[in-house]
């Protein structure tokens, strides 16, 4: 007698598992076939990513708006950001994207063990990104780049920003924190998803015929990468750096 039966009566089980979201079939009844289901899932993810574009777009728009109002100040503020770590992180994410795509490639040619390995690498690089990010945040903290929390107007005056314009600096930094923060959040979600996929691969859920969840996760991961590709120049590279 299975656990299910000990816990619930016939009727309760019907209520609980028939037609509720607890019901688990690989092929859901509204789909004709597995490929049909997979294609739909992929399309769904693409549509979702479109909404994400607008989500981050709003933040880029705000940066742009203030750049229109006070380009010099924004430029000056951007110079204080840590472009080195930013750059390294760009590379890290790009490589992780490759790992992801290789994972999917291995799935397509049904090399499950490789899939597993590549997924772990992807997640690993993701974690690596977060660590760099944490380091960068710490450095920002040390350099008083946290408006409203740890910020020093005098420093900025000494950097040649007019006292009356420091508001723009704060806004820029604030947007920097919001944007990178949201991006980091997305990375974290991505890592979790990738790890879940790794486990599923291990359990042999996927095959060359059906690896849709993997595919969808891949799309998400690459998108997070794309966002960073834009974040990097839009936040870190506005001004002219000096060696």
């Amino acid at each position, binding site marked *: 007698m299975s656990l299910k039966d000990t816990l619930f009566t016939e*009727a*309760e089980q*019907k*209520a*609980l598992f*028939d*037609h*509720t*979201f*607890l*019901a688990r079939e690989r092929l*859901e*009844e*509204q*789909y004709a076939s597995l490929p*049909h289901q997979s*294609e*739909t899932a992929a*399309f*769904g993810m693409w*549509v*979702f990513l*479109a*909404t*994400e574009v*607008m*989500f981050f*777009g*709003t*933040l880029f*728009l*705000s940066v742009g*708006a*203030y750049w229109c*109002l006070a380009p010099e100040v924004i430029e000056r503020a951007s110079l204080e950001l840590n472009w080195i770590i930013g750059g390294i992180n760009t590379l890290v994410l790009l490589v992780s994207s490759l790992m992801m795509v290789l994972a999917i490639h291995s799935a397509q040619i049904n090399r499950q063990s490789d899939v597993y390995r590549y997924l772990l690498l992807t997640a690993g690089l993701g974690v690596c990104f977060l660590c760099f990010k944490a380091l960068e945040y710490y450095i920002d903290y040390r350099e008083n780049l946290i*408006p*409203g*929390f740890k910020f020093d107007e005098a420093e900025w005056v000494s950097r040649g920003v007019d006292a009356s*314009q*420091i*508001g*723009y600096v*704060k*806004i820029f930094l*604030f*947007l920097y924190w*919001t944007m990178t923060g949201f991006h980091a959040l997305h990375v974290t979600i991505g890592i979790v998803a990738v790890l879940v996929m790794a486990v599923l691969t291990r359990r042999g859920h996927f095959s060359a015929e059906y690896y849709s969840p993997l595919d969808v996760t891949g799309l998400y991961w690459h998108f997070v990468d794309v966002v960073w590709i834009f974040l990097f120049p839009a936040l870190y590279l506005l001004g002219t750096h000096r060696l």
Partner: protein
Amino acid sequence: MTTATLLPPAPQPAEPPAERSNYLNVSYGVVSWLLTKDHKRIAILYLISVTVMFLLGGVAISIVRLHLMTPQGALVSADTYNRLFTMHGVIMVFFFLVPVAPAVLGNFCLPLMIGAKDLAFPRINLLSWYLYVIGGAWTLWAMLTEGVDTGWTFYAPYSSQATHYNVVPTLIGLVLAGFSSLFTGLNFIVSTHWLRAPGLTWFRLPIFVWAMYGTSFISLLAVPVLAMALILLMLERLLHIGIFDPALGGDPLLFQHLFWFYSHPAVYIMILPGMGIVSEVIPCFARKALFGYTFVAFSSLAIAFLSFLVWAHHMFVAGITLYAALIFSCLSFLVAVPSAIKVFNWTATLYKGSIAFETPMLFCLGFVALFTAGGLTGLFLATLGVDIHVHDTYFVIAHFHFIMVGGMVMAYMGGLHFWWPKMTGRMYSQWWSRLAALIIFVGFFLTFLPQFIVGYNGMPRRYYQYVPEFQVWNVLSSAGASILAVGYVLPLAYLIYSLRYGPRTGNNPWGATGLEWQTASPPPRDNFDVTPTVVRGPYEYDTGKAQNEP
């Protein structure tokens, strides 16, 4: 029973035996509802929660209307007043009118209309209901305990720095609700693309599906912007860093831009489903194919597209530059064209028809009349020269209540009465329902027509007290509101009554040709016993053949 007077619908399956398995009796118990992934049950869940919200929003504003009977304000304090109309606006927009048609009628009908077993992502569908409920409960709590007094527009810097009320929790609730409608939209778009029944080409889709497609399109691309704008607002309020607050170097117009980038398209999120409903109901009761199907279909997409180009018409006197004002005014007129197309086609559909005045039809005729009136006044507002006078007066209030209450709520009522037999398998009292339609129509005019006049006379909105010469109009408006209230309570009564005592209807009481009527009412769990194959368009009333009849 009036259905008798209807033409005999296309060959109709015999009266279903009472215990025939359908989505309602397939499994019992609260759990089977709260965990369901059946789009029909989720629709019912939405129906209940949305109705509750509507009543709350209505009660709030009823107090406002009573208060406005006398110039100095009869009932409540200034602060209470401000919190009341904010509550009204927030609830009615974000928790009633935006979700109402897609989440209730769309959720129920769309899969049936495209001949699918369910939506593409049933679990996400359930999730969006939970998001809605949690967000709603949360916002209600925020608004009922301390309250918010910013108006539903949350303009900075007032909302971000000046007010002492519960802004942040309210915004959190709104963001949740936003994602709820976003996920619904996602589901609809994907389902429409991938789950259509064999033979159901795009131009055999009912207009309602086109409208839902447009609606979903809008919420997908607009909601994220609102969410982010509100998040920034919260952060500004919490951390006192001015993205929007001029005192801290920010630009308050940025918030307005972001807010309206969502909220103007949102008004079409609210009206498009109504247009869809009407395009279903009028052909059915006029026994006519919808006139100019392709034009009506594409005008839905046109509206969805153009609605994104006009948002700053809410900011003509807010301090945007002359150039921006000119551009946005010009574009605002463009968005009126597709609406025009629809109105004219609905009218043309009646031509040479065989028109029966069942309750759904009454509501929908009401919709066309009131929407047209409201829309035309929208043109006044889009005209720069007039808007500099009537902006933020009761003229605007009247404009959007004509469209949202007179238009959309009417259409929703129409849709609800149209598909009620489909949902429940029961018929409500025709007499009472027609009476309700009439009362709502009359009460509506009495409530909002005076507001145009008092608005042009210069009574600003959000005023808890006003100068004496405006009193006569306000009294009229308040009188109308109480009639309206009665009109809205009636359906509550007879619909609930019909659940138990209403006569059982056949599968297709209206003799409609749409796919959703070709299965049992109420439908079985899997919608169709056999997946239908579609061979014709949705409105072939002249042949009386349903979409899946050879």
